[in-house]
């Protein structure tokens, strides 16, 4: 077993990909210096600044450069420091990257990975704390991955890097320095579109993403004390979504709680609810509960941010509501 972190696993996975494939290049603000979260630490030293390219504060153009580079044979990884700024690159990503294969009748491919991070909890306030992944799930042509742990980074980032499509990997700022042990032989890469059942249970299904996976596990442990067996599922990739695994679980438990950190309204939880209620209508014994942030920007004040942030307590509330 190797002790590592989410952040270090990102850096290590990128390094491995760059060693194996000369076409992998990294673009982003401060990436040659490791970045504020050290996710690209050591890359410039090993691969040089021709392949680990510091960029100016030009999110749109950088994303566009990655698209052009991907169309001409590279496999770029572009980092947008905070998902809050992905809106600056949204046109490039949505009108450029996502549609190029389609609009060209299959001639062009855009094998790029856009890495970014979201989430609150660090008092970073309204413009550095958002969870905007649901926007991306509404864009045909994009894939969306949300690793909840170093293990999932190790399993899914290599797959994202090998994918012939634009893949957005949404990391979590609160997970970067969480300690974790990984098997010595490393983690075998896994395909996108497969959920992971982290805990089995027959009373209620909890589907949670990113940081909320850990909150769900905490809630499940507490529920166990009360004799309630929760099944915890991490979809891991939002697009493609592994509905069969989720639906099979709900078919058994009859109760579902969906949890993400994003604002509830318009969040990806709504999509999961819509798909599950269709697939499992006759299995459901209670309305599906959604756990997410309230419909406000993220406040700075620590007491307010703590109240804003959904966590294990809100998941427990959700479970209670579906067990009522």
């Amino acid at each position, binding site marked *: 077993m190797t002790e590592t972190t989410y952040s270090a696993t990102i850096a290590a996975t990128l390094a491995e990909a760059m060693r194996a494939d000369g076409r992998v290049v990294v673009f982003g603000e401060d990436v040659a210096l490791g970045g504020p979260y050290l996710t690209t630490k050591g890359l410039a030293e090993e691969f040089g600044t021709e392949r680990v390219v510091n960029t100016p504060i030009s999110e749109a153009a950088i994303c566009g450069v990655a698209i052009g580079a991907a*169309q001409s044979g590279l496999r770029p990884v572009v980092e947008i420091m905070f998902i809050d700024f992905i809106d600056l690159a949204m046109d490039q990503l949505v*009108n450029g990257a996502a549609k190029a294969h389609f*609009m*060209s*009748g299959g001639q062009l491919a855009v094998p790029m990975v856009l890495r970014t991070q979201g989430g609150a909890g660090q008092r970073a306030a309204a413009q550095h704390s958002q969870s905007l992944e649901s926007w991306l799930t509404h864009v045909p*042509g994009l894939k969306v991955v949300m690793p909840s742990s170093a293990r999932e980074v190790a399993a899914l980032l290599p797959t994202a890097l090998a994918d012939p499509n634009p893949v957005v990997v949404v990391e979590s700022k609160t997970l970067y320095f969480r300690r974790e042990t990984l098997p010595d032989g490393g983690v075998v890469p896994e395909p996108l579109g497969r959920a992971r059942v982290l805990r089995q249970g027959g009373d209620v299904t909890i589907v949670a993403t990113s940081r909320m996976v850990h909150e769900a596990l905490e809630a499940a442990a507490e529920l166990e004390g009360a004799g309630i067996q929760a099944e915890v599922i991490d979809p891991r990739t939002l697009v493609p979504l592994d509905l069969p695994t989720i639906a099979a679980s709900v078919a058994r438990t009859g109760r579902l709680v969906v949890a993400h950190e994003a604002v509830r309204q318009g969040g990806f939880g709504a999509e999961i609810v819509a798909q599950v209620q269709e697939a499992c209508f006759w299995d459901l014994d209670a309305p599906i509960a959604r756990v997410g942030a309230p419909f406000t920007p993220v406040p700075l004040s620590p007491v307010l941010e703590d109240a804003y942030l959904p966590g294990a307590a809100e998941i427990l509330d959700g479970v209670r509501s579906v067990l009522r």
Partner: protein
Amino acid sequence: MGTDADGAGALDASIARRLLVTMWRIRAFEERLEPLKRSSMVHGLTHLSIGQEGVAAGVCTQLADDETVYSNHRADGHALAKGVDMGRLLAELMGRSGGCCRGLGGSMHVVDVSHGFLGATGVVGGNLPFAVGSAFAGRLLGRGGVVVVFFGDGAAQAGIFAETLNLASLWEVPVVFVCENNGFAEFTPRSAHTRVERVSDLAAPFHVAAATLDGNDVAEVYRVFQGVLGEARAGRGPFLLECLTERLSGHYVGDPGGYRAALEDEAWRARDPIQRLVRQAAARGWFDEEASHAAEAAAREEVEAAVAFASASPFPDPALPAELTYAG
């Protein structure tokens, strides 16, 4: 290679003929497009480049198939000049399965990878950075290769242009930014968009070399671009080439177009890049007006063949969109 003010010194008879043929092919194609569009054979927002053919011809005829061109929403001329098959281009605009993008893309999204035409875009300025990325890739992969990106004067006010110019300068990539400055963005004249006199003025702070020329003089476009291309092929760059030109039609086929009343078509037509080349050629004894008529006739014939090809091409299979949303 002369240094004639009118640029014709860079040409010889065979080059001049190639330019003539290219311009007539674009002209004849687009003149046919207008009725095809009005009769709903051609679909989508259709932006004609009639009057601007000198730029497409002067630039694209010098490029090899493996040299890349990105274009904007006014793309047919660039595509034809870069070698895209006329029949497949028209089939694309007609939404047929024989189209170069199998009918999925249409006029603003024409792509033909086999001819290095990596594509038009419907987002003004949207693919400027793709050019930098493509050139970056060529250099890193040791393949080299020049990239040309066409854009309009309206795109120069989009933030992406400044961001891209800065990156091209910083990374010294062999990208040639070719601006077709026709003085308008949609129905609004340039004076309502900016106080920057020349688009090329924007290059100086970035230490990007630039030139502004008469884009209606195809010989001049050819001559200047030849020099620029030589530099770019040697790996130097970027360069910003501003071609002053005029479009003789509206912004798109069927637009409200009231703004056109202000313009005097007669004066415009005198600056027609085709007729200017014919006059230059006559003066130098390369070919006479007859040859131009012949080129025109051949072009119109090719267009009719393209119409026949495209009309005979079936509409795509309804399963195609789902198949092509993701690669692999």
